């Protein structure tokens, strides 16, 4: 009996074993190794051959060079390319994680069509063929209205394909979106009489930059330009670049600038005129030359620019802008003496550009300073050839602001990202009221795609061959090709193929030239045209060398470009315009400009100012890096967060972190309030950006973002909106 092993003894043996097991590495090591084993499943990046390829980032129009680390030809990591003429070896937080966006939950995998009415709609699968048939029928219908394509990254080869397609349909309209980088074409046409000439900013050689609301130190321009700015700010003595930021918001650029001028919202035009007043009054510009080259500078009529500027004395401007008079005089003198100086005036990527009248006043400052067509100022860029001959039928470019309201019956929105937010309400205003159709080529259900009737997912980043023309702010033209490095979803829709299909359905005799086009063929033509100019430089990403174009044989140029190289043009010789207008060609401009500068809301309401960084409102911000900034650390404010001065907030019964409702004449939106003592009293700084949930789920909310309640002015701007805010 004592030596017989009982059941209890066996249980004790098991108990002892269990106790011993816990004291051994077995359970912990098995757990550990099993966790690591799960990293090697079939859908994780495979082990295998590592290779490096080169392409360009397409998440915004800048087009930074990208070095792609591939495992078995599958992109797994991105970095910049040292020496890249555009990116200068950098990638932003959007660029560095762009290859992961294909895994975002809102990625569209096949064509969809919206069914239902009002708020009760859902998305149903549809074939590309059926979608093309529906759209062709809509285009051919007798309904009143134009057929339009809004192109988020103009001047690509695909952009020319859009214009070619629209030339084949009746009332085709090709639309450029409002952008805050670059010099608007309307301005160069009307003020500088340089129709068709693009201007960039020669920041590399400037000594003073006066920025009106442009995020010069936080995402504006190319990384190469930012690097040049950063280096210029470290120069010693008088050679050091100074940046003066005029903005009603204490933005990151305002924080980092040499001087921040906090003006009342909407009074930037008045400040510009005040500065012009000082330059003229103190003889800090060559007025005789200006009279010679401009008909409306001082024509003695009482309605010339000098007459307008006379009204805006520093004391007068102080009352409008809250900027001290001596500060205005000081800045003007600084601009005049610390040359080359220039004025940049884009606005921030969420608030959109200034209105035309204000832009004219900013450009006038550049003219007074001699900053147009000269080193360190606004410089003309050489033309980048397109893929078509000059006599090919292409629809002209139209600005969104110039499209008549309620005129578009079929609207296609391009899939590229402009890097900037555009309120859907602005686009919707251009649509006919009776059953417009909106088609989106976006790769993700985000932004304008959420409002589309047809979703035709185009290939996303690195999933197709494309190209990138000159960045809008660059001082010389450039061109590069983007390569297909990854596989798009099986049911993707290549826009050019879709348009060919639609064109074949619309016309009884489809245009054979259009039907035979391919992106590869058109891009090759473009490279051929660049080669035929025998000018410029070519950067090879593999060797990191830059060679003169004329030193390369034709086949080498094509080879380098297809491997991710970049062509940049030579700098254009300084060439100041010979004629310009200070008020624009329109005889009523004087009154409009004066009115814009005199702007005085005079009410007790608050001013809602949308703010954001590059990529605002686009899917590009919803990546795994940005989640660290937006969601996990609160370093950047998520969408629908409103920063308000504590005094203003408390007056309205708000508390820091509380939920509130912002109301404008366009609607209301729920927001989260954050107190910020650096905020201007009376100003609601509303963040436009990803919502906390948008990083890992599909966001369906269409009409609750802050942009939807911004007032769209008659000139299609939305920078400032009168608003009120109440606790929710």
């Amino acid at each position, binding site marked *: *009996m*004592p*030596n017989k*092993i*009982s059941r*209890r*003894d*066996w249980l*004790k*043996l*098991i*108990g*002892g*074993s*269990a*106790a*011993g*097991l816990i*004291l*051994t*590495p*077995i359970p*912990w*090591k*098995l757990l*550990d*190794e*099993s966790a*690591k*084993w799960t*990293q*090697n499943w079939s859908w*994780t*990046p*495979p*082990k295998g051959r590592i290779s490096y390829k080169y392409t360009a980032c397409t998440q915004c129009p800048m087009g930074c060079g990208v070095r792609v*680390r591939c*495992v078995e030809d599958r992109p*797994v*990591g*991105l*970095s910049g390319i040292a020496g890249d003429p555009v990116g200068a070896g950098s990638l932003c937080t959007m660029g*560095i994680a762009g290859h992961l966006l294909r895994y975002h939950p809102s990625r569209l995998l096949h064509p969809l069509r919206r069914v239902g009415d009002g708020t009760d709609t859902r998305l149903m699968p549809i074939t590309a063929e059926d979608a093309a048939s529906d759209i062709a029928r809509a285009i051919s219908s007798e309904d009143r209205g134009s057929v339009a394509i809004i192109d988020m990254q103009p001047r690509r080869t695909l952009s020319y394909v859009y214009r070619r397609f629209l030339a084949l349909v009746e009332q085709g309209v090709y639309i450029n979106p409002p952008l805050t980088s670059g010099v608007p074409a309307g301005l160069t046409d009307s003020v500088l009489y340089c129709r068709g000439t693009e201007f960039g900013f020669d920041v590399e050689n400037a000594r003073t930059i006066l920025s009106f609301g442009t995020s010069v130190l936080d995402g504006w321009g190319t990384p190469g330009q930012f690097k040049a700015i950063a280096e210029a700010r470290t120069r010693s003595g008088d050679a050091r670049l100074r940046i003066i930021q005029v903005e009603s918001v204490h933005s990151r650029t305002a924080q980092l600038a040499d001087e921040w001028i906090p003006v009342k919202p909407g009074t930037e035009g008045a400040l510009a005129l005040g500065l012009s007043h000082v330059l003229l009054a103190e003889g800090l510009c060559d007025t005789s030359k200006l009279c010679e080259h401009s008909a409306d500078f001082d024509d003695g009529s009482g309605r010339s620019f000098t007459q307008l500027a006379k009204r805006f004395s520093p004391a007068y401007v102080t009352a409008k802008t809250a900027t001290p008079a001596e500060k205005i005089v000081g800045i003007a003198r600084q601009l005049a003496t610390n040359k080359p100086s220039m004025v940049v005036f884009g606005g921030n990527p969420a608030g959109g550009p200034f209105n035309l009248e204000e832009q004219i006043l900013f450009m006038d400052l550049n003219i007074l300073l001699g900053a147009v067509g000269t080193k360190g100022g606004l410089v003309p860029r050489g033309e980048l050839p397109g893929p078509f001959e000059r006599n090919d039928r292409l629809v002209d470019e139209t600005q969104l602001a110039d499209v008549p309201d309620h005129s578009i019956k079929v609207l296609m929105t391009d899939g590229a990202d402009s890097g900037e937010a555009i309120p859907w309400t602005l686009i919707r205003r251009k649509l006919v009221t009776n059953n417009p159709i909106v088609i989106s080529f976006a790769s993700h259900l985000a932004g304008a795609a959420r409002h589309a009737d047809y979703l035709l997912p185009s290939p996303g980043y690195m999933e197709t061959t494309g190209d990138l023309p000159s960045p809008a702010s660059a001082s010389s033209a450039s061109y590069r090709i983007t390569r297909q490095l990854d596989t798009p979803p099986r049911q993707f829709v290549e826009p050019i193929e879709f348009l060919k299909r639609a064109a074949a359905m619309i016309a009884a005799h489809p245009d054979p030239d259009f039907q035979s086009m391919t992106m590869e063929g058109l891009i090759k033509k473009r490279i051929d045209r660049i080669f035929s100019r025998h000018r410029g430089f070519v950067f090879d990403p593999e*060797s*990191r060398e830059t060679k003169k174009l004329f030193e390369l044989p034709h086949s080498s140029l094509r080879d380098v470009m297809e491997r991710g190289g970049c062509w940049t043009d030579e700098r254009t010789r300084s060439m100041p315009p010979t004629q310009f207008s200070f008020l624009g060609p329109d005889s009523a401009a004087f009154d409009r400009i004066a009115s814009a500068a005199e702007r005085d809301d005079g009410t007790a309401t608050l001013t809602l100012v949308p703010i954001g960084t590059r990529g605002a409102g686009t899917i590009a911000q919803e990546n795994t*890096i940005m989640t660290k900034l937006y969601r996990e650390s609160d370093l950047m404010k998520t969408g629908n967060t409103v920063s308000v001065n504590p005094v203003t907030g408390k007056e309205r019964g708000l508390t820091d972190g509380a939920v509130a409702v912002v109301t404008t004449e366009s609607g209301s939106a729920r927001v989260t309030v954050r107190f910020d003592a650096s905020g201007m009293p009376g100003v609601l700084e509303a963040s436009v950006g990803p919502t906390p949930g948008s990083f890992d789920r599909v966001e369906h909310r269409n009409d609750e973002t802050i942009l939807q309640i911004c007032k769209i002015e008659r000139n299609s701007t939305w920078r400032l909106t009168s608003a009120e805010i109440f606790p929710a």
Partner: protein
Amino acid sequence: MITETEDTTTTPGGRLGKRMFFAGAAGTLLLGWIVFPYLIFRSVDQPFQFSHKTHTGDNIGLDCVDCHTYDKNGRFIGIPATKVCRPCHSQPVGIPDEDIRLVTDYVNTGKEIPWVVYSRQPENVYFSHAAHVRLAGLKCQSCHFGHAYTSNLRPARFSRISGYSLDIFGKTLFNAPSTPSRGMCMDDCASCHRAKGVKESCIECHK
């Protein structure tokens, strides 16, 4: 009526139970600490023995960079190609059997030697020799310790479950087998970065 309670700990049956308990514990401890490490890791021998000590010693006096070099773009090549051995080993010069095999199977045929890499990092890890050696000025011994003076190459050990080398995973609870740090684990990288005041974020190494 008084009932006597049996003291089971002192009775033969109770003692047996205690012994069974401790036997179970001891057996599992033995299994966990002695047997398990050999079960969970498989050993992979190098294709043949190589003596770093012979090559770096006084007679030959090679330095690490003589074989483990950078290409013209500054990228670290790592394990040298067979052609690096050829100038000296066109004929057998070393340990007879090993060197004969080197010459006949690899040098003469031009085939690459399938060296087993001890510390190949997972695909989600990006490591740059150029950044550490050329920019930061670290010596090879900082991470590779005395490897340059070893007389032979130890077998590489890989987990049968995860497939990763024992050399690259750091201190876990009851790390088995308990090994001195080989300098290739994330913990080693992180502690060295911290010691040298290097700012770091996830993306520096996990691109």
